[in-house]
């Protein structure tokens, strides 16, 4: 099996965010909100770091 780097980021972020959301908040609504927040941070952080590395290289 091979996947692209971005697919790996999405899968990693999805599963990790689900677990973080469930374990770090007590109310179901807050779980969903925190999970979504984590997902956006994971993916957004990776994209931002990628651009930083691109800028350093160029």
């Amino acid at each position: 099996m091979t996947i692209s780097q971005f697919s790996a980021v999405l899968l990693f972020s999805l599963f990790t965010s689900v677990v973080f959301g469930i374990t770090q908040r007590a109310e179901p609504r807050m779980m969903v909100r925190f999970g979504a927040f984590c997902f956006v941070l994971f993916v957004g952080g990776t994209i931002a770091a990628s651009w930083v590395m691109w800028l350093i290289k160029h």
Partner: protein
Amino acid sequence: MATKINYPLVAGDKGLVETPASGISPTVALIAGWLVPGAGHLLLGKWIRAALLTVSILCMFAIGIALKGKVYLPNTGEPLDILGFAGDLGSGVLYGLARLMGWGQAPVLVAVADYGTKFIVVAGLLNIVAAVDAHSLASGRKRS
């Protein structure tokens, strides 16, 4: 005068003795959650959370294996390998199954296999977080 405490306790309460709020021993919930992903929450009757945790951790572990990630051994002597082994061990039965079936690769040969190694380790670490959460629910430290 002794005061009767209504459980569950709220996190942050001090000076209160924790007792199970659900009838399930916190230790049982912790060990069950560690051995089988989501089992701790299942014992506590949190079906949806248990299902989501099981699917998430199982999928991460399975993807890691499918990407030909490395399954760490306990006795390599390398400090980083020992840390990887501790992470892998968090998967409980899944790690035992991987060792038993010979899943995973010893040397990482391709770039995505390194992602696979990380997926396997993180699946174990997430399982530990989930098991501790089940312990907190069972002891009443977490409200719901």
